[in-house]
């Protein structure tokens, strides 16, 4: 469960204040709102990439408000995938595990498992140059999920994809959520994505988050 209470975040001259919402464990929350309303700023605050000025963020019973991003256990997939061009697909999937100093055998097993679930096995030895948009997003998803995070934050991961690939990644996201049970916070502008994936819809309007529960 992620519980955000009275959060205040500043991004240059823009600021969000008194933001509160709760996402129960295992739910798929979609955060919607107009361009520039602060969705990405809020997501960055949750991930620890932007300093929180006031309020609190709780992950289960843990206060993570002022923890560095590395200690939060939150997977993050940005809009542009932000792959590391010097690494192969396999190295992307192993990155977080190597940082955590997992033994080699465990790393190999986990990379194979993630690759299998995201249909990345044939691409494992490829560098990121020449990957399609959909493949890049699947690598970014695998990289973020490799260390089994409690929360997965997605910042418009489908916005740069064509309709066909968007459908494909939508299916991948739905399958992943069902198979891993990870709690998801997904930013999108697309109502169809929200209809298809969300069990909770959060709307950020004029600095206030409203919440709509949907049938799972």
């Amino acid at each position, binding site marked *: 469960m992620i519980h955000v209470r009275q959060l205040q975040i500043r991004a240059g001259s823009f600021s969000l204040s008194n933001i509160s919402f709760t996402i129960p464990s295992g739910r798929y929350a979609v955060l919607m709102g107009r361009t520039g309303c602060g969705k990405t700023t809020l997501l*960055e605050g949750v991930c620890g990439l932007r300093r929180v000025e006031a309020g609190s963020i709780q992950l289960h019973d843990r206060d993570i408000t002022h923890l560095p991003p590395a200690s939060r256990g*939150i997977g*993050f997939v940005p809009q542009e995938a932000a792959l590391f061009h010097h690494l192969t697909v396999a190295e992307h999937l192993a*990155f977080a595990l190597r940082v955590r100093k997992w033994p080699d055998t465990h790393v190999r097993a986990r990379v194979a498992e993630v690759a299998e679930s995201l249909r990345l096995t044939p691409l494992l030895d490829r560098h990121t140059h020449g990957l399609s948009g959909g493949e890049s997003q699947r690598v970014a998803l695998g990289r*973020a999920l490799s260390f089994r995070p409690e929360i997965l934050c997605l910042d418009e991961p489908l916005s740069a994809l064509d309709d066909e690939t968007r459908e494909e990644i939508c299916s991948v996201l739905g399958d992943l959520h069902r198979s891993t049970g990870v709690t998801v916070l997904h930013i999108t502008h697309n109502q169809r994505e929200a209809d298809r994936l969300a069990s909770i819809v959060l709307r950020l309007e004029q600095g206030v988050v409203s919440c709509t529960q949907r049938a799972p």
Partner: protein
Amino acid sequence: MTAARSPQPASSIPRDPTGADRAFLAALILLGGSYLLVLVAMLVADASYTSPSHLWKALRSPEIRFAIHLSFLTCTLTAILSIWVAVPIGYLLARWRFPGRALVDALLDIPIVLPPLVIGLSLLILFQTPPGRAIERIIPVTYAVPSVILAQFMVACAFAVRTMRATFDQISPRQEHVALTLGCSRPQAFWWVVIPEAKRGILTAGTLAWARALGEFGPILIFSGATRMKTEVLPTTVFLELSVGNLEAAVAVSLLMVVAAVAVLLIIRTFGAQESLGRPL
């Protein structure tokens, strides 16, 4: 009834678009090509003024061999020092907003816009101040080899800083953000993500610093002097040979510098092309 369409002005549709394209392309080639032509003509003139025997004679001269050795040594050290300094400065300027950032940015351009002789003079004066004299008591700098490296470094580093700044500007901070969420500390994200992503930029900055250092003369003349077999680098040799009227030797040494510079550029371009194809460097 249909409204009569106003006729389109004839001038808005080129009568012969292919001809206009050709004229435009010809103008571009003429303007750009004239510069390239003079550049190549200069090199051809140099090459035609000398002969293999002049080159061989130059290469056998102990003074010129010393200058070649010292030039390669000092340029390599300057390039390494420049990267060592340019990487942190470029990264700080690209990633952090801090008070006085614009001033620091402007200060870093001073060696680029300042006349080289002024840099040499300023270094000479700096080492006459009490802190400068204190350093001199430990390591002799002025009119010695360290002065050559320092003079080259002060100019070459500014170019390396500009290159590194542009390199880090082009690397999305999102990659670092992702690395942080994957469990990296800031230093780990820097070493494991930013530096490998910036590898080509670092290589370019090092090459630029090396090539710039090879051609540096003004500050070296003032700060290091032009003493044969002591602080003589290749540009100093050209100057000394010219001053005694030995034009053949001066041209031969100039050609050596041209060959060295072109070779370094070609090597780096080749490695750069391989890197862009995804092969390890």
